[in-house]
């Protein structure tokens, strides 16, 4: 108990130490203020934004776009994945083509999206959805194809209908793979949200970074990076907690 508290304290102290050394490097003139902002200045900016409300509106704008795109991606991926993963014919005809697209960088679709939608929110949502659906789709298909033969035979012995099989056996069996796919797709969705914001100058955390760079405000830049870091951390934790609740049987 005491050891755990000591270790936790040491971790906090070390983190603070990093900030202190960083601040000292700026104050002493060792590192140029234009390129590397002092942590205190960055935190000042964050506090200011929190006070005047822009922090929340900007974060909300990014979060909204991220979630819209990601949820669309997950929905489409699950529907498609369930159909392809549970039908041997569909799997044989479609999986090789789908696997072909796996190594394609998700951001490569941005120019195509800009062509179709211009520099708009629609473009951003499309790119996020398109990019984020592949990890979930491919891992869902893999999960469905990997249902143990014995379980499939138990299902046919019990004369389960296809739909019942999918919900009672296939999806829970594939859930481990699907969860892994969800984690990857969420990080990818965040990256694509930031990228498309920068590309299309859409209001949000990503765009703020670009603005800061253009106006040479390094404190704003570092503030933006910190905010993004916290935001990214929080959404990943949210997914992790959800996963833990749903997959309690795995930890047993």
């Amino acid at each position, binding site marked *: 108990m005491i050891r755990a508290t000591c270790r936790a304290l040491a971790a906090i102290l070390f983190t603070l130490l990093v900030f202190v050394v960083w601040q000292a490097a700026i104050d002493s003139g060792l590192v140029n203020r234009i390129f590397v902002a002092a942590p205190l200045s960055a935190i000042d900016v964050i506090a200011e934004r929190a006070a005047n409300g822009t922090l929340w509106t900007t974060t909300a704008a990014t979060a909204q776009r991220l979630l819209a795109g990601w949820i669309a991606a997950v929905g489409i991926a699950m529907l498609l994945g369930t159909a392809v993963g549970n039908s041997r014919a569909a799997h044989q005809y479609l999986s090789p083509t789908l696997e072909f697209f796996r190594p394609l960088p998700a951001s490569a679709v941005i120019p195509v999206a800009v062509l179709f939608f211009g520099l708009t929110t629609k473009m951003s949502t499309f790119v996020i959805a398109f990019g984020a659906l592949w990890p979930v789709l491919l891992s869902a298909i893999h999960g469905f194809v990997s249902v*143990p*033969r014995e379980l499939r*035979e*138990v299902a*046919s*012995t*019990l004369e389960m209908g296809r739909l019942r099989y999918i919900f009672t056996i296939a999806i829970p069996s594939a*859930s481990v793979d699907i969860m892994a796919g969800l984690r990857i797709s969420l990080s990818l969705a965040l990256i694509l949200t930031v990228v498309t914001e920068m590309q299309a100058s859409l209001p949000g955390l990503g765009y703020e970074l670009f603005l800061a760079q253009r106006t040479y405000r390094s404190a704003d830049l570092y503030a933006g990076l910190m905010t993004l870091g916290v935001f990214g951390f929080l959404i990943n934790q949210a997914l992790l907690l959800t996963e833990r609740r749903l997959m309690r*049987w795995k930890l*047993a």
Partner: protein
Amino acid sequence: MGLHAVAQAPAINIVEVRQVSMAFGAGLSRHVVFEDISFDVELGEFLCIVGSSGCGKTTLLRQIAGLQKPTSGSVVFNGEPITRPTQDKAIVFQDYSKALLPWRTVEGNVALSLEVAGASASLIKSEVDELLSKTGLQAAAKKYPAQLSGGMQQRVQIARSLAQRPKIILMDEPFGALDAITRQALQDELQMLARERSMTVVFITHDLEEALYLGDSVIVLASNPGRIVKQIDVNLERPRRQLETRENSTFLRLRHELHGLIGRH
């Protein structure tokens, strides 16, 4: 007089296997797993099929279950040819870790067949409770399969198949992956359940002693190609006991007789 009449009543065959064979490939690469296998399974009979690996005994079982089709010949179940798996032919797999639903508790696993059949919640509860107590699983009811030993997991599989109310239970070397002590315990539990419920069982094993211990009759399969070498009735008293039965002179004689048959092929 009455007893005599009952003894004379003709046995009902629930399964009739007629000249069944299984082969893969064609021409030079044709591999015959087994050929020209015929036998009957009587209602209420505990039939053991024994043979070394490669004789196709698992394939044969799966054909009776409807999971595979024979290359030629026919399997008839309850007077009708088998076309697909059905609820009344329960199957217990050797690899219990893959045959149970890891995300459901023991209760949940056993309840599965009842749920599919559309039974009411209260009926499910009472049936599951009864089966769990019959198989010694009450204490583990709320546990997940991963938390149980191999023997316990296999009991869950057995309980689940009983929940189906099958007409026949097909078991594919169910105790093969268990240690000797657990195996003996499960053998006795199984034979007790079989007696109580007048179950019809087809039990596959490579262990000759197990086959003689459990079965009312034993079929010996040879391999390369698979074929029936011998079919005998095991006229030993029930209930059978691990020590006494295995020392019984009839048991030992049968063991001698069949041992040579398996080893030779």
